[in-house]
């Protein structure tokens, strides 16, 4: 089933970490396997935040040897960063298998990202000027606590609670997906894509990489492909309704935008609340109500509806 949620504040910052946590926790019943966040702080030109995982959570049960391998992987990442001229300002090992870097870099970040992912077991979860992408097994409360998301200040964010149906229960199959290698773009999805393998092969022929067998990753790659070719986000969302088969509702964030698209059957839910200050959305209204206990006006977007909001 899966649950998705998003929020965007217009022209001001707020405690997006706490807001997303409260909405996603209310959607736990739609997907208890994993929870993910893509939250956006103040973008800083030239300074990048990189989130990566160096193993799956379950790998930590493999014994002492995995710890040695993890150290080797971190050393390899550091060496690659140095070889690309990246200056590391902050390096945090948030979880034994998850790291956060803040670095300065003025070269080709896509090339650097590809180089880093050549390291065995390493996957970049996100790279961008404002994006912080966190995903792990468990519910929203436990993930937020483990990654210190409770006081994250930002302008917008999206999140996902996953019920694994098409692929494994692991971090690489959890949402959101970063639109590799496009900075600051993330995607969450609720639904099933039925022409996944056809579209995946098409994207792979165009040179895009996939890190999982989760159909939702296709939407991130598809979005990245269009944005990299100068297609505006709204147009990319519209094209997806014609080109991607299945039942889906998905959300996309860029550095300063949040967009949504709903398939032709409108088979997957989304409830919208729009005010002058912010827009909030979730698979179920009960999630939005956790941050707006007072009475508010909400509505369901229709089939083939595409919307994009500016922060």
């Amino acid at each position, binding site marked *: 089933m899966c649950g998705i949620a998003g929020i965007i504040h217009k022209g001001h910052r707020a405690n997006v970490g706490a807001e997303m946590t409260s909405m996603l926790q209310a959607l736990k019943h739609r997907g208890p396997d994993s929870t993910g966040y893509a939250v956006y702080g103040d973008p800083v030109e030239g300074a990048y935040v990189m989130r990566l995982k160096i193993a799956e959570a379950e790998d930590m049960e493999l014994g002492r040897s995995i710890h040695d391998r993890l150290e080797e992987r971190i050393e390899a990442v550091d060496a690659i960063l140095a070889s690309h001229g990246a200056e590391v300002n902050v390096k945090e090992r948030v979880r034994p298998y998850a790291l956060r870097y803040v670095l300065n870099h003025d070269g080709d970040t896509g090339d650097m990202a590809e180089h880093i992912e050549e390291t065995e077991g390493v996957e970049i979860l996100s790279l961008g000027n404002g994006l912080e992408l966190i995903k792990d097994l468990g519910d929203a409360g436990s993930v937020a606590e483990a990654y210190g998301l409770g006081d994250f200040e930002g302008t917008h964010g999206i999140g996902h609670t996953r019920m694994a149906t098409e692929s494994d229960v692991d971090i690489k199959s959890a949402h959101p997906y970063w639109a590799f290698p496009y900075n600051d773009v993330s995607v969450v999805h609720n639904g099933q894509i039925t022409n996944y393998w056809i579209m995946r092969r098409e994207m792979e022929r165009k040179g895009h990489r996939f890190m999982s067998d989760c159909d939702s990753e296709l939407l991130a790659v598809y979005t990245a492909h269009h944005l990299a070719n100068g297609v505006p986000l709204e147009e990319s969302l519209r094209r997806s309704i014609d080109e991607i088969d299945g039942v889906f509702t998905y959300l996309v964030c860029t550095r300063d935008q949040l967009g949504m698209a709903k398939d*032709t*059957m*409108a*088979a997957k*839910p989304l*409830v919208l609340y729009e005010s002058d200050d912010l827009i909030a959305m979730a698979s*179920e*209204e*009960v999630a*939005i*109500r956790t941050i707006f*206990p007072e*009475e*508010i*006006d*909400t*509505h*369901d977007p*229709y*089939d083939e509806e595409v919307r994009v909001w500016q922060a």
Partner: protein
Amino acid sequence: MPGMSDAELREMTQEERVNALGMTTEQLTGKSLYIEFDPDAQERFAYPWAPDVDFNKRTEVDASDLTNTEVNSRVRDLMAEGYGTIVLQNPRGKHSLAVGILSRLNLIIEGSTGYFGVGLIDGPNVRINGRVGWSCAENMMSGTVVVEKNAGSTFGAAIRGGDLVCKGSVGSRTGIDMKGGTIIVGGDTGALSGFMMQRGRMVVCGNAGKNLGDSMYDGTIYVGGEIRSLGVDAVTADLTKLDREWLTRKLTQYGLMPGNGVDHFTKIVAGKQLWNYDNLEPNEKKLIL
């Protein structure tokens, strides 16, 4: 069949056979529809275990800190105590609120409900001063439900009777598989509304999405605005004097009568080219075929 030979039946068209056998193509069922045409019959449809409630006995339930199960249990307990008017405060989008109420009750919900709100009901009058999520009043048998704001998808799925009203707009697949009763939408409705509708009436004062009435068996849909597209086997029909009178009465009753009247409404019915409309038991079919 009495007074009619097999040979005579064979000579008839399918529609004539059905009418001769007393099987109209729009068999109105559901308690409230009986009540509409025969007010005296109302008493016959009370469940024997239904609590004897007094509409003048009023109380409130604050749902803020209750689970949906606790709210529903509280409502049942209050009905058993004879409360006939219950106000539910702070529902905050909780799912499955006020489901399975099978007797008379005035229920006022001050706020929005989540999925499957007031589903499986047979008799209560419900006013929701908020929005409702997906599948509101699913399988409703009788009573009235009036939603003051918007509604999600599958509004009134498979209802068999009663009046289900949304004063705002609703999502997709409104009245899917409805088998009776009346659905009234003050605003717009989404795609595939009236999908596989079998009986009853649906009124949409605004616009309707694509594939309206797709694969409908029977029943009637009225649309005041634009129709993006009709579904398979859904066709337009002439708006009769009876239709206008019925629309005027129903829309006035719920304060949704358009300023420009109802003459502009489009009437949609089943083309009846898709399905076998014999509607007969096997032994009856033997007599005819």
